[in-house]
């Protein structure tokens, strides 16, 4: 299986789009080498601005550029952009409904060795709570490409999380990202495992573990966290009667919380949530960290068995 960071797909598609359209502009806070926005910089230096290590200014400037009719990508690490420039994202981008795409890499615990300050576990929570904001987390490099292509034709604020770590490539190159649509990765009837990003792969692995124990697990790639595919979530709840969510994010306020917000109102169903349990991360190799913080396939499989016991 190919292993590619989702940031690569973003950077590559941005170049392809830059060749097709002259209204795409990229603004960076000096991390374009790491976010892969530098692929665009090399091809289109006149449409690329590195504003230095100044995330607030990056977002404000992106908004001003968008008001001249540009589709503006603002890019940095998730932790710096969403935390440092939150006020600008809330007001300049979202309250003004500016056509700014915030694409940030280095989210989740798989950031690894840089440790707690760099590992962003909060971005889903604080981005999805903003009115007018759409939130996307691609499962692999192909989906990152397709989502990048989608967002230039979608007017309005978008936050997309990409990864530093190489993620298994689970989709085909010609698969099309469907905004707001949960994607079934594996059919099953006993429990639904809903994953975000890398946790979709871990969920598929968990389904294999469960299969050996006679449990038939469905796996969903919930690449769009906002707006949520409520119909698909309710269908999964009705058809399997139990849900596990898995994400490289705090359980508080994250994707699992979003799923629970829908199901508790529309079709109350037992849910177990796999994610970061109200702590910060630490230095370590990504696989070691995933194990230590209980974000592996075995943890998802355990959660599945637990939630199945809670079925009515």
């Amino acid at each position, binding site marked *: 299986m190919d292993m590619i960071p989702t940031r690569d797909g973003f950077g590559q598609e941005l170049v392809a789009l830059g060749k097709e359209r002259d209204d795409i502009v990229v603004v960076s806070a000096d991390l374009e080498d790491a976010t892969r926005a530098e692929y665009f910089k090399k091809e289109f230096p006149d449409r690329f601005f590195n504003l230095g290590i100044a995330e607030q200014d990056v977002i404000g400037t992106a908004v001003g*550029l968008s008001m*001249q009719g540009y589709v503006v990508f603002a890019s940095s690490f998730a932790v710096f952009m969403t935390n440092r420039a939150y006020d*600008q994202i809330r007001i300049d981008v979202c309250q003004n409904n500016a056509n700014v795409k915030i694409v940030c890499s280095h989210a989740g615990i798989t950031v690894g060795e840089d440790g707690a300050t760099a590992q962003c576990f909060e971005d889903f929570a604080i981005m999805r709570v903003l009115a007018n904001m759409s939130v996307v987390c691609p499962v692999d490099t192909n989906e990152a490409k397709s989502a990048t292509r989608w967002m230039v034709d979608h007017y309005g604020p978008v936050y997309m999380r990409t990864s530093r770590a190489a993620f298994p490539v689970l989709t085909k190159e010609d698969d099309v990202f469907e905004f707001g649509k949960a994607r079934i990765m594996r059919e099953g009837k006993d429990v639904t495992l809903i994953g975000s990003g890398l946790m979709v792969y871990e969920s598929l692995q968990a389904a294999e573990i469960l299969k050996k124990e006679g449990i038939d697990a469905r796996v969903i790639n919930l690449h769009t966290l906002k707006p949520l595919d409520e119909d698909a979530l309710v269908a999964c709840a009705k058809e399997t009667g139990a849900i596990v969510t898995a994400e490289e994010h705090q359980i508080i306020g994250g994707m699992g919380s979003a799923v629970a917000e829908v199901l508790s109102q529309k079709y109350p169903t037992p849910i177990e949530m796999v994610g970061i349990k109200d702590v910060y991360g630490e230095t370590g190799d990504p696989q070691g960290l995933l194990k230590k913080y209980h974000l592996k396939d075995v943890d998802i499989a355990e959660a599945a068995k637990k939630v199945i016991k809670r079925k009515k």
Partner: protein
Amino acid sequence: MSAKKVDVKALQKTAIELRKGILQVVNSAKSGHPGGSLSAVEILISLYGYKMNHKPEDPNWEDRDRLIISKGHASPAAYVTLSHFGYFPKEELVTFRKLGARLQGHVHRKVPGVELNTGSLGHGLSVANGMALGARMRKKDFKAYCLMGDGEIQEGSVWEAAMTAAHFKLDNVCAIVDYNKIQENGLISDIMGLEPLAEKWKSFGWEVVSVDGHNLDELIKALDRFGTIKGKPMVIIANTVKGKGISFMENTCKWHGKAPNDEQLKEALSELE
């Protein structure tokens, strides 16, 4: 750049009318920010009544000069000015801060002529820079102006934007600081001093002009200089008086965010006659 013809006396009369309007809308809303609105009147008049290319009947005209009102709490001054210059009917001013109104408490794009929702300080200059970069890329001649409060520039983000404008040589950006020397809880110099302010901007690579911000001749002269300066942005430090024109509102933080009652309104209006 050749100076346009201007009837300064007429603009001075406009200033009196706008001050009355500010007091009336804040009184009618029973809340709002009169102090920093009254200090900004001549600045706004020099822009809308003289310098800026704009079409009130076509607020989204693509070649218009842009003004970002980054001190979003100066909404009474902004709305009264926009209404005076024909962006919307004066009758609408009484809806300021009321449920269902376009005239939101802090400046909002629902209002014709407003470019950006603001109200959290220190945001506007970055957006103005972005507009100016966009203008350069699109080979447009319009200018981006940004009105900021003096307390506002205590925000670090202002200085990020100040670096950007200078680094990218944005000579189509003009910042104006309404330097009324007072913020919500007292004197700027007591709370978090800005001096030496002109030197700060100069050291950030800006052309700096200091003027009496209530003297329309000085403001007009400074604005005419903007556009002749090439290769760097310009800031006008407009020395103003908080609460200007109303004796009991001048030079105090008490009227930063407080509305005059009917009796106080009457007294204030009589001072403007």
